[in-house]
């Protein structure tokens, strides 16, 4: 399950969606909004997404995970719009027969989401605002990934 929502992420519902009788463990990652950035006080965060492409890439990450690890279920939700401090902006849950796969798959999901999924975060300070750039998204090795996507 992959979703983009504009309100609170329902973590209970997320966890319910990965319940499986085959699972021996569930790994949950929550990305939460911090009240500071590089020593400055953050008042709030605002997220925007290129929603159809973001969902497509989240599904692509899910299918890569299913090829690489033996997991039962995976669910990814990203929130957009204003996200107040301390609330979750992203939530990922993975169930698998054994814990190792769930931990590794969950880590891969958040790392790849931050690298390639077209979602942006604006940090709003008391005296201005800045669009954040994830360090991993600026690496030019993206070319290798882009190359294989070219369809025409």
């Amino acid at each position, binding site marked *: 399950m992959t979703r983009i929502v504009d309100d609170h992420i329902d973590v209970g519902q997320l966890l319910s969606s990965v319940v499986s009788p085959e699972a021996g463990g569930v790994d949950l990652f929550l*990305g939460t909004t911090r009240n500071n950035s590089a020593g400055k006080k953050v008042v709030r965060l605002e*997220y*925007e*997404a*290129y929603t*159809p*492409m*973001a969902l*497509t890439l989240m599904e692509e990450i899910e299918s890569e995970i299913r090829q690489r690890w033996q997991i039962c279920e995976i669910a990814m939700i*990203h929130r957009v719009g204003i996200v107040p401090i301390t609330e979750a*902006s*992203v939530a990922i849950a993975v169930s698998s027969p054994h814990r190792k796969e769930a931990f590794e798959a969950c880590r891969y999901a*958040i790392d790849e*989401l*931050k*690298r*390639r*999924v*077209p*979602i*942006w*975060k*604006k940090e709003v300070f008391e005296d201005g605002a800045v*669009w*954040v*750039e*994830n360090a991993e*998204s*600026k690496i030019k090795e*993206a*070319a290798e*990934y*882009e*190359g294989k*996507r*070219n*369809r*025409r």
Partner: protein
Amino acid sequence: MTQAKIVITVRFFASVKDVAKATETRIELPVASIADDVLAHLVIQYPALKALRPYIRIAVNEAYVDGAFVLHDGDDVAIIPPVSGG
């Protein structure tokens, strides 16, 4: 005889949207233009994009492409500044 043209839609997000002061525009390019030509066109229109250009990625019809990707009439081109989801 006039040279054949294509018309594409260009979408802007985050920092690029702030520079362009728009969420999308339509531009006309010569037939067989490539993705990099869109950036070249935009940098002329919005000089402030020059600083962002090395880190901009391009998506055509919702998939990342490289700069040499050949565009077609009606393509939906998204200008993707470094992402910051999570």
